[in-house]
């Protein structure tokens, strides 16, 4: 009897308990997947089958995170504070560059795209060039960026900027042309001016697609920053990885790689959540 009462009480929370179970199962597969790789790595290292100087097993490079902290400072090796998890400043440097670059690139792209949408002559003048520049990989801009902006934030931000700007400009114009004419006509019938149509119809209508483009280009931008940090800009996570190799400190290199993977993944999850929250009508309507 009491068991049945308890079961009855549990009914309302069934949806959330189902979701919890789904989460546990999903997390289980994650742990298993990563665990197998780490396990093979650790076992082969313990058996002496691989060179642990080149491929230090995870327990080793993770355990050394404190000793490595001095290299993860914004100016590596200059200001070492013992036991201070300065790794966050290296992450911060890379993150700041990506986010500023993404923001500037997106704003500029939407602006250019909108101008091209309204001014035919502007479009005809700029779009052939933009179409030609769009396929150039962000990393290919690094030499130019370093020459133009020096070895600092400027170069890294520029790499992210070009990584997002050209593609997103093309996507903006394309999506603006593809906005359902029904929405535009509805607004016109209700007395909307051109500016009002732009603001109240075109922008909200293309926002979900732009967000997808930004998210897809985010990884390219993230890699662009890291590459810039590896070859020229002397700080951030990319610089940490390269420094590890130069000093034959592979513990540091692998630590840097692990952090890059984790941070990149978390950023994508964050963007995904933001997308869901800002553009929930879209995902809900698609189900």
């Amino acid at each position, binding site marked *: 009897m009491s068991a049945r009462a308890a079961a009855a009480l549990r009914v309302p929370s069934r949806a959330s308990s189902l979701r919890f179970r789904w989460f546990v199962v999903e997390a289980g597969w994650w742990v298993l997947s990563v665990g197998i790789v780490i396990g093979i790595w650790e076992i082969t290292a313990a058996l002496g089958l691989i060179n642990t100087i080149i491929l230090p097993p995870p327990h080793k490079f993770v355990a050394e995170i404190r000793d490595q902290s001095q290299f993860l400072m914004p100016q590596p090796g200059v200001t070492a504070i013992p036991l201070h998890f300065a790794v966050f400043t290296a992450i911060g440097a890379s993150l700041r560059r990506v986010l500023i670059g993404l923001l500037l690139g997106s704003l500029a792209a939407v602006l250019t795209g909108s101008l091209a949408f309204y001014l035919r002559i502007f479009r005809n003048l700029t779009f052939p060039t933009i179409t030609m520049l769009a396929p150039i990989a962000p990393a290919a801009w690094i030499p130019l960026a370093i020459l133009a902006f020096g070895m600092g934030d400027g170069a890294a931000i520029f790499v992210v900027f070009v990584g997002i700007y050209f593609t997103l400009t093309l996507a903006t114009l394309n999506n603006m042309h593809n906005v359902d004419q029904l*929405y535009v*006509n509805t*607004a016109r019938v209700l007395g909307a001016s051109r500016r009002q149509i732009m603001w109240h119809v075109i922008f909200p209508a293309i926002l979900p697609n732009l967000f997808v483009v930004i998210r897809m280009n985010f990884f390219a931008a993230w890699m662009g920053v890291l590459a810039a940090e590896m070859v020229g800009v002397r700080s951030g996570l990319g610089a940490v990885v390269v420094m590890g190799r130069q000093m034959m400190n592979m513990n540091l290199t692998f630590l840097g790689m692990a952090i890059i993977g984790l941070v990149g993944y978390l950023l994508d999850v964050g963007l995904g959540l933001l997308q869901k929250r800002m553009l929930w009508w879209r995902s809900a*309507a698609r189900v």
Partner: protein
Amino acid sequence: MGEIVCTNVTKVWGVGTAREVAALENVSFSVRHGEFVVVIGPSGCGKSTLLMLLSGLEMPTGGTITYNGKPITGPDADRSLIFQQPSLFPWRSTIDNVAFGLQLRGVPRKERRQQAEKFLRQVGLREFANKHPHELSGGMQQRAAIARALCLGADVLLMDEPFAALDVQTRFHMQSFLLDIWQGSGKTVVFVTHHIDEAVYLADRVVIFTARPGRLLDSVDIDMPRPRNIISPDFERYRALFVDRLRSEVTRAFQEQELAEMLDTRIK
């Protein structure tokens, strides 16, 4: 006031291109203030084109259209067009959709929401004010679209097969609902459909168009008291009349199309 007069109206799409199509040819008719006119005709007869012209979204290539004595030069919130497809903005809640026209006019948020709520109540959607379009059924979305037009104080409702996408029960319900709103409101309605029952049930007057290019074939007053019984002999008489008139038109349209296709393949 809501009087519309069309004189010798012609509309050709894509003038000067290879795909030039005459949608309307020499159409003259008028709609009196407060009248409920239903336009029927075979598909592709330019019914939708006519509403585009009446709303001011498109300009005729020949002839003139006047509204209350003045030529139509562009869209006007006084004449609201309601589309066949649900046209609510998916990113706005129902109430914000209904209030959209007032927002465009710069009415403050609180005031326009009050107004919108009044009309949502009239169309029976008050509890759905804060839902979003994808949470509403097709019939509810069309009611919200009607509320949006009413909220701006439109004198003329131009309706382009607004209930065509709905199932039979919902459609019937919406027809009665539309009549309830229209009766005693003094609003003018121009309603396009290819559904004969719908035309006889709703109209003061039914206007029949020919197949492409659309020309005025006939105009028939429906002399029946409302609410109309769709299984009465009178209703049957009107139905038979329109079926007969339309059948010959549809046959002609088909023959022309087949002929055109035959010629097309010959040339190739």
